[in-house]
């Protein structure tokens, strides 16, 4: 069973469980992987039908499965990534007379991987992303890219380094024309231009928004259109600065899920680095989370001595500190911090998370929220 067939099978599973929302998006991902214009057209037609027949779920499932059957038959060439597409070694950047310095930072990322870049404001997230995108220079270290095709010159290289800043520029004119302009510039044949554009619009859930003006879009949809524009460029590496800013929680989850699944494409995987303040959401989809503090690098895979095996739990509760200490008295509690309305408890290595939960349950403590952040970069924030 090929990777493509596996994916198709997953989509079948979604539809069997009547999860049409996510299922349909995954269906479109599989359709995109085929690179087959007739499949694209059918998928577009289906999207159009779906948007006009909102409540006919059974019919949608049937139609979707019919399309899936066709998609399944298409041979999809699997992309094998041997080299890391980006390799940064000991990058150092300092501003002015030692006011702020970033690094040394070393990053290596393969296609299909998603890295999250977190850290408090002013700790160099944007700077690092811009350095990786060749937007700004760095003082020391080395930065290498390895793309499918070798770049002819510096400009050609920049065309492949796709970076979306936090504040994107306004689009003028028809949104669809803007998208088609991208493909036209990238030398996509005239016959495929419209189809590919509509496919991308369908995939990013912009079908009902494609006739609007830029100023009529909410910031979430602006980000989606920006993403559509970028993805049409078929980037091999994608650097996003705060793509989740200004989005509500649900929109954040959806866009992250989309990013993850697009980056994991079978025949065109993308190396994706995104910066964000939404630690929890980012951590969920990332292969690695990089934490920057005062320009210094840490990540969640680092073996940091005792911290590595420590159990760190974040608890939001109305109970008093005394009550908590009472509950935890049997465990080897090392530290209990109260930080921004939540407690962070540090236990020694022997303590297990389930034991803590059951102790809290037995004590009938009122818990609003509890989370094991032992291997999360969250621990760097609360520390």
């Amino acid at each position, binding site marked *: 069973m090929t990777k493509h067939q596996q994916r198709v099978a997953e989509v079948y599973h979604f539809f069997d469980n009547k999860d049409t929302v996510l299922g349909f998006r995954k269906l479109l991902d599989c359709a995109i992987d085929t690179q087959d214009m007739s499949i694209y057209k059918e998928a577009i037609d289906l999207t159009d039908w779906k948007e006009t027949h909102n409540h006919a779920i059974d019919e949608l499932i049937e139609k979707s499965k019919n399309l899936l059957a066709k998609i399944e038959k298409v041979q999809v060439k699997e992309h094998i990534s041997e080299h890391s597409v980006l390799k940064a070694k000991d990058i150092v950047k300092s501003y002015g007379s030692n006011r702020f310095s970033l690094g040394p930072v070393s990053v290596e990322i393969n296609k299909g991987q998603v890295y999250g870049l977190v850290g408090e404001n002013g700790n160099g997230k944007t700077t690092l992303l811009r*350095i990786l995108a*060749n*937007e*700004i*220079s760095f003082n020391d270290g080395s930065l290498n890219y390895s793309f499918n095709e070798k770049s002819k*010159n*510096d*400009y*050609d*290289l*920049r*065309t492949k*380094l*796709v970076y979306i800043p936090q504040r994107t520029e306004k689009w*003028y*004119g028809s949104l669809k*024309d*803007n998208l*088609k*302009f*991208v493909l*036209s*510039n*990238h*030398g996509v044949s*005239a016959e495929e*231009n*419209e189809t590919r554009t509509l496919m991308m619009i369908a995939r990013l859930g912009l079908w009902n928004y494609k006739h609007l003006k830029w100023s009529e879009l909410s910031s979430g949809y602006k980000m989606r259109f920006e993403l559509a524009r970028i993805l049409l*460029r078929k980037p091999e590496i994608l650097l996003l600065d705060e793509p989740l800013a200004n989005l509500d929680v649900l929109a954040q989850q959806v866009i992250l899920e989309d990013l993850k699944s697009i980056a994991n494409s079978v025949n065109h995987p993308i190396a994706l680095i995104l910066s964000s303040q939404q630690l929890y959401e980012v951590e969920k989809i990332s292969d690695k989370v990089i934490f920057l503090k005062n320009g210094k690098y840490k990540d969640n895979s680092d073996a940091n001595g005792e911290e590595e095996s420590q159990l760190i739990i974040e608890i939001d509760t109305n109970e008093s500190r005394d009550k908590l200490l009472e509950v935890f008295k049997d465990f080897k509690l090392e530290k209990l911090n109260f930080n921004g309305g939540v407690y962070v408890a540090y236990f020694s290595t022997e303590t297990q998370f389930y034991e803590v939960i059951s102790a809290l349950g037995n004590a009938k403590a009122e818990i609003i929220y509890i989370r094991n952040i032992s291997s999360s970069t969250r621990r760097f924030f609360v520390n």
Partner: protein
Amino acid sequence: MQKLNKFNQYLLERYSTIWNTKIVWMLLAAFVFHIVFFIIGYLSHIDPVSLQKYSVKDDYFRNGVIFVHLIISILLIVGWLLMMLKNNAFKNFYPTSKGKLFGQFVQYFIIIFSCTTFYFSYMNGFRMFINNKYPDQEMAKNVDIINRTAPFLSQNIESYTLENRLFPKPFFALYCENNIEKIDRNKKFFVYYNRVYQYYSLYSKKSHQKDKRGNFIPPNPEYSKKIQPAYSDEQEKFETFYYKKDVVDLSSSIKTTQPSFYNFSEVFYDYDFKDFDNGVGATEVVYYDKDSPDNILKNKKAIINQKTATLLNSKNSAELEKLFDDFLSISKTYSVRNNLNAKKWVSMIYSKDNPNFEVRYFIKDYDGKTRYDEDEYYEETVAVDSAVATTDNAKDSIKIREFNPEINQQLAPDKYVKNNMTEYYYLSENMKDLLKNVDSVKKDDFFSDNVHIYIWIAFFLSTFIFGFRITGLRSLLFSVISAGVLTLSITLITVFYGLTFRGREEFFVAYFVLFIGLVILLIPLLKMNMTSKMVSSVLINISLNGFVLLVLLIFAIISIHQKAACQLPVTHIDYDYTYQNCPNIFEDLGFMISYIILIIGFIFMYFYTAILQKWKAMPE
């Protein structure tokens, strides 16, 4: 609408740059306006009166059309920019190439050029109208009639005096001396009031030698004897000097010394001599001007003189009336104001007591109702305009009495004109203007004369917009400020240099500016990484906009060197030195230089796009 949209999508999918620059739509819009201006041009001078003024080919700039043109051009360009600036592939790092970027620039140039050159369509419309309304053949026929009738308009007494006469033959070949100082009293001379005429045969000598100033030296022995030539004719390689030989007695041909129609030998209108505004109806002074292609003109004048004489001699009043009728009908067609009547006009010429056809009536060349009606002005200027007439000099007036003892009983020419002025008027200058304008609109090369200004407007606007598209607004504004500061500094340094060192400032300025220009040009070419992205963008913008000026400066430097080299030998000059005109690259190439620089400019832009890409890719 749907078709337009479909075509737009067609362009977008296939030719993204063409879609982005909107060149198709802009050319279409420009074409529509070109047609509008063509029609305006065609209709602008339907009324012949509108052609009766000086140089109507400049009407475009005088009667407000230029403002309409400017407004339309500005609106078109602003509208175009608003549309085009919506998308910028280069800014977004979409793949591009040298050819694509250069193609974009060329499209800007074409768009701006087509949106700013309505003048040419207007002039073409105007020309087409003139060609249709005033066809060459008809005009040639009419001009002939007008030229043959002009002798009888008798508007300027100076045209009818003896020195004008060129027919029959002896008059053509002889030299008429009318300088009272040079008249030989012992030989036959003729007197009209205070003017004296004496006819001389001539001999000529050529001279090839030039003096220091580049003037030909008159031949010897005349030069050493200080014999003044009657007149001379200068060619490129030599000059022919004409000297008076013998006095010839023409009494048999001269029946009267009074102003007479027999003497009239002016060509009222001939386009080839349009630049000799006064020359066509000239007296001897201008007539022998060395630059005048005098032989052709002299022949033409002689023919007029002959035709007039023949007509008068035939005593056929019907033929004259027919000529006048034709003339007045042409005048009516061309709306030239007059109150002449063919019959009465003929009757003023033929009269029994005037067998020698002396001029005994004058026709005003202005309408009595116009501003010329004020008497004072009229007395001063009209009819007698020659310096010869006002010999106030006491010495001259004594001398003239020796030639003409009865002068006191005779009527001075100005009085004579005033006494014989009729109520008839004919606005002959208006006719002349109309004819001149018609030919000028037909024949003048208004395209080559004016195209350069539009070419360079288009080129500089294109480089400016291109710079904006490539580097962005901030860089462009900084570049403008930097260029201003640079200009100011260069000026100050030059002033300082001029005050301190003196002399050869032009070399200093030229080389100084060249040096700075080369530095600005070469830094982005060779050492872009040395400067910050902002500084390079300023240098790039100045290079983009200033490169052609730098080329012009190089031409200017060549030219000042040529000038300097040419001046040097003057210090060790001897008498035989053949003085040569200084070669000057600007004069040698003329307007060609504009095209040469333009081509160099485009070639530069093509290669410079690589630098633009390099700059764009440069990290900050």
